[in-house]
């Protein structure tokens, strides 16, 4: 009862209220959708404590048991503490850890930014290796994939403009040919998501509960 029925009821009520208030501008309903987003992020904040705690324990265990590569768990702790401590200090000292000039920002600029953008940049290499492997004219559909990809790739660089027809063809593919399927896929996803939401509200879909 408490474990299954109540959660289903909570989902039902919350979902229905959110949907109904969408059509009612009158206070206090009009703002409810916006408020709900804020509420969601507050709950997310609490859950993050659980998540981070499990991560800290994971590395603590590795060190305690001297598991293979446990030395790197010290690096993990160093990174965690460096950020956490500078964050707390900057928050107390300046009231805003994210302001320019705090030690927290210094670490952000010189540790997080390069890590983040280099990780992202790895994609340039993976895009090359994936296209080398995947774009083979194995059958009709694979050939289509390959041909459109190559045409658009050429059309996006200035040299493509020198091959007659490539630029207009690329523009035509992007503006018309791919527009229909792109729209169809998205309408499909939206419909699927709506149908899924209905199932959730009705309590038919309850993977995580039973």
């Amino acid at each position: 009862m408490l474990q299954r029925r109540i959660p289903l009821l909570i989902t039902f009520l919350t979902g229905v209220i959110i949907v109904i208030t969408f059509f009612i501008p009158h206070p206090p309903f009009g703002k409810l959708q916006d408020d709900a987003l804020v509420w969601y992020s507050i709950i997310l904040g609490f859950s993050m404590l659980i998540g981070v705690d499990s991560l800290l324990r994971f590395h603590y265990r590795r060190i305690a048991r001297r598991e293979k590569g446990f030395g790197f768990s010290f690096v993990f702790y160093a990174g965690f503490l460096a950020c956490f401590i500078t964050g707390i200090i900057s928050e107390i000292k300046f009231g805003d850890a994210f302001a320019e000039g705090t030690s927290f920002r210094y670490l952000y600029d010189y540790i997080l930014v390069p890590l983040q953008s280099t990780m992202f940049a790895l994609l340039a290499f993976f895009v090359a290796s994936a296209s080398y492997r995947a774009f083979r004219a194995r059958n009709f559909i694979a050939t289509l994939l390959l041909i459109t990809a190559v045409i658009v790739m050429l059309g996006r660089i200035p040299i493509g403009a020198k091959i007659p027809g490539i630029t207009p063809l690329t523009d035509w593919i992007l503006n018309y040919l791919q527009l229909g399927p792109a729209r169809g896929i998205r309408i499909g996803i939206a419909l699927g998501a709506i149908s899924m939401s209905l199932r959730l509200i009705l309590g038919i879909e309850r993977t995580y509960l039973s």
Partner: protein
Amino acid sequence: MMILLILSLSVKAFDTPNDGGGSITIEVVGLNGDLKNGYVYRNSMEDTTFELRGLISRTSYKYVDDGAENGKEYLYKVELEFDDTTLTLFTGPVSAKAQWYDPTRTSVLIFLIIFSGFVLWFIQLARKNPEGLFIRKIPALDAIDEAVGRSTEMGKPTFFIHGLSGITDAGTLAALTILRRVSSKVAEYETPLIVTNYDPIVMAASSETVKQAYAEVGKIDNFNEKNIVYLTYEQFGYTAGVDGLMIRENPGAVFLQGYFYAESLILAETGHSVGAIQIAGTTAATQLPFFIAACDYVLIGEETLAASSYIGREPVMLGSVKGSDYGKLFIMIFIGIGVIFATIATILNIKGNSILMNAFNTFMGWL
């Protein structure tokens, strides 16, 4: 010229429509770009003073006064400054009120009723008559058992990698259904399963899902909460962490499910480099091409969302899929009729008859 302009000017004050109240809109009608400044003053009908509220917008010729009290009457005075003259106009009394229904959203309401109607109707039908419901083949979902099986034969763990969306995203909930299937297979074969999480709420839900699956096949003792890993709520930190785990744990099967952003290809290429069978599914239309290029099986968009019905094959679920298909059919027919209407309207319009065209445009405006 100037006199003509001024004679044609008027000012309107009305309750701002379709809102939560507390707001009155003042609109100057008949202006066309010569306005230098337009000041709006308000009198609360309690004394004779007019208080400056703000300026008329020079692009929309409107001012929205949000400081009105609901139900209280106000008078407004508008001073319009032109290059060579100033004009003062009065309007009111007017009061603000909150509306109980937003008619601009009627089309949303109608669509929701029709679509939910189909889904509910077919769920009801399925309850009464559970036989004969069909769902087309989705190869990527059939491959789940094979992938876990092969991973077991090779003595390698199975990886389930969640995307970056939270629990509020339909794609994440679909991912959880697939996780449910994967974990019951894994529990049955007694191979290790590692679930990586980006979002802590999803982690909690994953943990519940996997635990339930293990309990169902009677292997609850084999369930290890520590294998439901939380990494970090940072896109590429998560990617770096998952990549590292994959390279070191060397999985035989990798499931990439949920909403992904750019990291999709980094993860899929790393999974491929360790030789795992990869089954991906996402509602992120932008990332589908990369999964198609780098993975063995891909659930395309809506296929992901149909997964729970496909796997469970429960009549009510299949009924909802059927209802949703009818919703899709409704949209297609709607598009079809709309296109025919638009075509006829355009042809008539070219020939000089604009009645249908105007009707069409009115309809589009309402929609």
